[in-house]
């Protein structure tokens, strides 16, 4: 029997058995670098949306109006941002990004969330028992928020033949905690095109 024939047969079988082999590589990248893999909502979207909303918010007259009326920077608490998309979005990251952007703007004061306050109050209570009198922090001196920021993320997806358009809209409202008046509303949108190649080797 020709050796060539057998070699070809063996080679075909070996190729068939070998495909699918893969390896893993890990590379450290700067955290600010934009990396999109699946096309889902990610850290870059969260940061961009938060920055855009806070820029819009602090550029509108409600901050100055508050300063004139009450003589101090407005205190804002970031409330709930509801995810109404068909994708799991880490809304806590978005809330943290909103808080960070507000603080960095220097135009408003951000107070702790309800969840954080519980922990802080626990610590303050602990201080009343175990800390020295001069270092223990007093009750009843918390800064109450003037406004609460609430919002929601909505999305529309359209897909066909491996191509997908993803449209996200983040709507936020700033509500006066005393009067329930909405002093500011804003939104930001993110649109993505996700293309998948039809073939790979």
């Amino acid at each position, binding site marked *: *029997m020709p050796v060539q024939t057998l070699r070809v047969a063996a080679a075909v079988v*070996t190729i068939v058995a070998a495909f699918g082999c893969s390896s893993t590589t890990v590379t450290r990248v700067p955290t600010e670098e934009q990396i999109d893999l699946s096309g889902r909502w990610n850290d870059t979207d969260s940061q961009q949306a938060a920055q855009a909303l806070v820029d819009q918010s602090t550029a509108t007259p409600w901050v100055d109006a508050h300063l004139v009326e009450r003589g101090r920077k407005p205190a804002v608490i970031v409330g709930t941002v509801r995810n109404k998309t068909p994708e*799991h979005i880490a809304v806590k990251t978005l809330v943290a990004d909103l808080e960070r952007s507000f603080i960095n703007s220097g135009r408003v004061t951000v107070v702790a969330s309800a969840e954080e306050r519980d922990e802080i109050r626990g610590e303050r209570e602990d201080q009343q028992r175990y800390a020295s009198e001069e270092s223990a922090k007093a009750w009843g001196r918390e800064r109450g928020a003037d406004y609460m920021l609430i919002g929601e993320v909505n999305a529309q997806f359209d897909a066909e033949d491996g191509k997908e358009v993803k449209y996200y809209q983040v709507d936020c409202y700033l509500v006066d905690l005393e009067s329930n008046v909405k002093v500011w509303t804003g939104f930001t949108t993110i649109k993505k095109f996700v293309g998948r190649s039809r073939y790979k080797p």
Partner: protein
Amino acid sequence: MNRPRCRRAGRALSGTLATAVALAAGCATYVASNLELRTHLSAGEWQRALARVDARPGGTDRLLELLQRGHVLHYAGRFEESNASFQQAEDLSASLFTRSVSQAAASLIVNDTTVDYRGKPHELAMVPFYRAFNYLSLGDRDAAQVEARKATLALAGAVEATLREIERPEDRGAARKLEDSGVLHWFSGLLFESDGAVNDAFVAYRNAARAYLANRDVTGVPPPSGLGRDLERVGLAHGFRAEVEELRAASPELFPAPAGPPAADAGGEVVFVLESGWVATRDQVMLNLPILDVDRRYRSTDDLAWALVDRASPAWHRSYDVEVEYWLTVAFPVMAPPDTGRVSAVRVTSEQASATSEPADDLSRRAAATFEAERGQMLFRTILRALAKYAATRAAEREDPTAGAIVNLLGVLTERADTRCWLTLPDRLSVARLTLPAGRHELRVEYLDLSGRVLHHETETVDVADGDWFFLNRRAF
């Protein structure tokens, strides 16, 4: 032949045979080699079931491994791990849109199991269903809402992927019927309503009604009476009276007359989903297809292969004036009947109310419909492969009879039908609904056979608050 050349030939021959034997080692079909999984699940042996899933990791069955792992973990009550596995499955499924050319080439000389399993529409659509229950069990209602919004998108995406595989218009038409699922819309609507999103809930209920009516010939399941009540309740209370009346006029069967006293206005809603039996699987059969003396007229192998697809139909008859030149034997999948299990329905009873489940979906019939839509294309691929193997054998024989025998042996050993499927899915889904007054309730859950006899029962405790919703899913294996 000189001696070194003879030794080289011998080594090559033994290597090829060894590889052939190795390839043939897993010759049992996917279903045959994994049925043990069902035995473990039936016995509640979650750890052994997981070990079975993990026993054959990776490869082209990776998606099935992740789906079945997520499913077993769901029943084991390990909801976070289940979600992690299902998430991986969803990510993998999305990435499998890109096809591997090398796998496709291999499938033409080995068999279809050399190609990554991409999941069937009725399988991928169940991922959000189980993930929603996982999140509800974890107390994360917002995440369950995300799954509700995802559910119908997942089904449409999976059908789109199936359509890409199908060439013939009649088969594509059959696949398009699978694009909608009444139970997924209904379930999404219930989740939306539980979150106060009544507008979304009404749209979902209306879509559910349309899907049930349109898919009745696929699933054999009529619109559940509970859906009609949901449509009426939400529609009339929230400004959709005209839409409800329009539906009632077009499809009166959606709104059956109330069977009992009207449910209390206040109180909470219990939604009990029963999963029963085992989804129908695929078996392997050997088909003998005649190659006729007149087949030389076909200008391409593709044309001949499509002609052979038609010959695989039981209705095909050979005319008297043609001769069979060769019988082509191929391994091909067929749908096996579902294992319906003993439990047919569930009766949920509290001190105040009682409800018996009604059919909501038939996954086995969806699996069969998917198979029917894919059948022609699968058979075409299988025949192309068999023709290639036949041609390779003939070519090798012409060079050397032994080489021909080896190529033929390789062809036979590697021929295997692709029977891969999500084995642990249930055969059917049914839903029982109860409206209960606020307070703690002991629910007696009776599992019934076809004649209504109680096979076994258990007790569930629910704490109901006004306007609250409870979602429970239980599996009768």
